[in-house]
């Protein structure tokens, strides 16, 4: 059973469209990260959310942490081809933390010009 479920698994859209991807769990997380990974490279940290209900913005990207700290979403406004990549969420659980995070399987986003 995957601890963190990401949806959709694949998303292909045209440049200029908006989109939302989701990261859901039945577990409570002390913090949650979003990463973007481009082909042939390692994941790169985009943001960390730690407070239930928290909203963070990074240019056209908006990240939200659920009130119960079990889920998160990433919304991209006016997507651009440069947003293409694999988006991964990762959560740290306070009860089994030990410095580890659990990763979702990711959402592969393709933005067509």
């Amino acid at each position: 059973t995957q601890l963190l479920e990401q949806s959709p698994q694949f998303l292909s859209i045209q440049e200029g469209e908006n989109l939302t991807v989701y990261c859901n769990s039945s577990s409570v997380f002390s913090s949650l990260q979003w990463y973007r990974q481009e082909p042939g490279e390692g994941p790169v940290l985009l943001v960390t959310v730690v407070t239930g209900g928290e909203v963070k913005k990074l240019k056209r990207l908006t990240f939200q942490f659920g009130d119960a700290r079990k889920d998160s979403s990433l919304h991209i406004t006016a997507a651009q081809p440069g947003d293409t990549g694999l988006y991964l969420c990762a959560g740290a659980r306070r009860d089994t933390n030990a410095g580890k995070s659990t990763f979702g399987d990711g959402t592969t986003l393709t933005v067509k010009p």
Partner: protein
Amino acid sequence: DAGITQSPRYKITETGRQVTLMCHQTWSHSYMFWYRQDLGHGLRLIYYSAAADITDKGEVPDGYVVSRSKTENFPLTLESATRSQTSVYFCASSLAGESNEQFFGPGTRLTVL
């Protein structure tokens, strides 16, 4: 400032051979991690280390050995490579603490023939 580096970037080996993948970080981060990334499985934790001389198994440790004699280095050894270990391997590091923000290396693409 090199950050976190991995070597080699590409490796082809044969079944039964021993292979060591190197990981070096310049941030003096306490935690270091090894993941493998395969299609359909996302990032799976192989081993992690909370500090020098402290290592622990992750989700998929069988067939792998790690050591951490120095804070900055965390080599991963495949003692007798198998075809199922063909994958892309990522090393990551993070500061101690609850945020668990991880910084990834560029990856090593390993092919076992």
